[in-house]
């Protein structure tokens, strides 16, 4: 096991992974998960992003287009 992770909580491990201080293999071993998908799932459920992943970028064109044709006052029926 990665020596840096001794005494860490799950939250600490996820934070380290998000900030790129540990690799995903070390995190997977510590969390005892076998698949990368499960690791990503755990990260997302805890409000974390995988290192290097960015939230979707919405282009200014899309933002302008959607803003111009959407009326925000609609209520659920």
């Amino acid at each position, binding site marked *: 096991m990665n020596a840096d992770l001794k005494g860490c909580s799950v939250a600490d491990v996820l934070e380290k992974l998000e900030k790129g201080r540990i690799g995903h293999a070390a995190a997977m071993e510590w969390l005892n998960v076998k698949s990368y998908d499960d690791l990503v799932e755990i990260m997302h459920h805890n409000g974390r992003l995988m290192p290097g992943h960015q939230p979707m970028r919405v*282009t200014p064109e899309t*933002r302008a287009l*959607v803003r*111009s044709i*959407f009326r925000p006052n*609609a209520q659920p029926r």
Partner: protein
Amino acid sequence: MSRKTVDVAVVIPDASPVLTLARVGRLDLLGSFSVPVRIVDQVLYEITKPANDPEGEVAAGLRRLHNRIEIIETNVGVGFHTRRSRDPKTPSGNLGEIAVDEYATLLAHTTGPSFVPLVLFEDPDVLSLRIARLKTVHLLNTTAWLLTLHREGLLPEALELVEQINSSRKTPMVPFEKVGLTRKVRSTWLRRSFGS
């Protein structure tokens, strides 16, 4: 800076966006567009057929939107209904895609460069249809649209809706967008048109 006027219509070329919105109880969002929302007749058939809408709730929801949704009649759709009236077992197969192609061909011949079809879709097969290759087409899938609404502050609960949508899927729906192109490169004319 000169500003161009553009006409926009939302085109829904596959059943999934409507069925997805219906599943999370927000079919009403389709009524929030200030531009026409167009669905070809054969896609409407796919949306409301018993396999997709066993209780008829989606059809009722669309009826409630009445004049907000424009159903586009196609030769494919009319032909299918004629054949189906003779034989109710007539399969619909991939007629939805063919009907959308027919409509896209009509758009290509009857609209100018100031017309922007905003294609709201989910099925990746749509990307191979003619409508996805129209010059000024702007493509968005359901999650990209909802995320944009959230980013713009137009629908604060949009992120929860995306979570709801993804919770009922095997794999999350990855947001997808493709901005309308002009002849050579991605341009800012569309953005300028809307004064951003």
